[in-house]
């Protein structure tokens, strides 16, 4: 056709459909009357196939009676050119179509950008929220530890300095104070591991054997109708972890899973090497694009709706009844995972179950990358 358009031709509707996938036209000019499938049928098929995508269809026709034209527009035609077709009118109609197509592309692009901006803004807002909560809990932990130091210290001093007072009753009372103080201290430790992501000092390679042991220890915590399945057989690259923290995280996730299934169902633990993960971390919302070692805990419980999922890592957020849980389990998981440079992905379907995927950075690759760095070109 010239005039700067890229053109592909087809002899009939079937051939046109065949060429569509490779050529991806924005404008289709088709005759109405053709052997086999006619132009109107082609139009209908294209509209079905290109569901929602951009395609401007111009019908060439000698059926210019009102009924025929209405039928053509109903079939999905955007414009028509009555025969005989002159080059000038053809070009003018195509140009009009191209204008509309460009406009549509711009509108679509703007819409996409707006959606992306909204998604980014939401992600940044959530990430800020987690940071703010981290700061807040760090501050709370600091002040609580000061008060607890006084409570526990004076109770201990009193027991040491005045043993046996009141037939030993004072001892008993002081012991109760100490016990409550120790429980509060443990709670603060959990809070701190959320806020600072403390990774612990003693790190050993994560291996299936370690996880098998943990699962064995967890069996008694599960109810009789909970099936705990584990699959740790796969070879994985080296990941350094703190065993206590792994235990703590698996325990939290398994207990949550047990609650989500009302004590009846299957919990599945799985260890695998996952390459090229492209997703946004469910708790810190950072965009991930890397390989990880994934330790997942999945259940077929009631699942978590999207709204709740945004809050599950917040400290003291709990679905359990008051007194049933601390609401710190997942906050601790968040703290531990981010403390070791890892992330968390959560897939959940309401009514079907949840899958908590702990993503650990691969130790070896991290060191290699640190050693070489990206190549620079002069």
């Amino acid at each position, binding site marked *: 056709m010239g005039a700067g358009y890229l053109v592909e031709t087809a002899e009939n509707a079937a051939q046109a459909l065949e060429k569509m996938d490779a050529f991806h036209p924005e404008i289709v000019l088709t005759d109405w009357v053709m052997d086999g499938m006619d132009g109107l049928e082609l139009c209908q098929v294209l509209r079905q196939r290109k569901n929602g995508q951009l395609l401007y269809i111009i019908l060439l026709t000698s059926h210019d009676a009102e009924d025929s034209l209405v039928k053509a527009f109903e079939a999905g035609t955007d414009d028509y050119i009555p025969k005989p077709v002159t080059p000038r009118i053809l070009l003018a109609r195509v140009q009009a179509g191209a204008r509309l197509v460009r406009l549509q592309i711009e509108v679509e692009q703007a819409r996409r950008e707006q959606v992306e901006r909204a998604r980014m803004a939401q992600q940044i807002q959530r990430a800020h929220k987690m940071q703010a909560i*981290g*700061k807040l*809990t*760090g*501050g709370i*932990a*600091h*002040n*609580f*530890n*000061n*008060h*607890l*130091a*006084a*409570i*526990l*210290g*004076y109770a*201990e*001093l009193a027991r*040491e*300095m005045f043993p046996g007072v009141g037939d030993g009753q004072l001892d008993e009372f002081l012991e109760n104070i100490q016990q409550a*103080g120790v429980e509060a*201290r443990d709670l603060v430790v959990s809070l*701190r591991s959320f*806020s*600072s992501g*403390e990774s612990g000092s003693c790190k050993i390679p994560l291996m299936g054997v370690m996880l098998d042991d943990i699962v064995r220890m967890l069996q008694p915590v599960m109810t009789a109708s909970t099936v705990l399945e584990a699959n740790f057989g796969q070879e994985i690259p080296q990941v350094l972890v703190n065993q206590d923290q792994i235990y703590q995280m698996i325990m939290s996730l398994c207990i949550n899973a047990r609650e989500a299934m009302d004590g009846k169902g299957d919990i599945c633990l799985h260890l695998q090497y996952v390459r090229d993960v492209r997703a946004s971390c469910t708790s810190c919302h950072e965009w991930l694009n890397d390989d990880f070692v994934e330790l997942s805990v999945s259940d077929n419980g009631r699942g978590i709706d999207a709204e709740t999922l945004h809050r599950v890592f917040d400290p003291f957020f709990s679905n359990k009844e008051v007194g049933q849980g601390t609401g710190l389990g997942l906050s601790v998981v968040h703290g531990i995972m981010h403390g070791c440079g890892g992330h968390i992905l959560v897939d959940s379907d309401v009514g079907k179950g949840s899958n908590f995927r702990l993503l650990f950075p691969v130790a070896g690759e991290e060191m290699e990358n640190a050693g070489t760095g990206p190549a620079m070109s002069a």
Partner: protein
Amino acid sequence: MAKILVVDDEAQIRGLLVKMLSVEQHEVIEAENGTQGGEKYRAHRPDLLITDLVMPEKNGIDMILELKKEFPSIRIVAISGGGGITGSFDYLPIAKLVGALHILQKPFSLQELKSAVAEALGTPGAR
């Protein structure tokens, strides 16, 4: 028996440390912040400095850095509730880096304090 300077902005904690250390027959001097702590260290030249880290006016880390320059063999035990007043930053490992012989996370037990003090005092060093 040793002369020990206790620096903490919380009166309750200072009181507790004074009591705990007095049980062990130590002589205890108190200060409320880093500025006061530095002055009292220079004036009394104690055998040991036990200091909190997050404090108003002058924090424990700055005081340690200053005193460490003047008295390179100073014996220090750092204590902290972990994290800052407004954040999650942990100063205890920093205290260790800048010269504290021992660090104690609050809340600590009497026994933990006793061991830290005994070990710090047992560490060779000039006043």
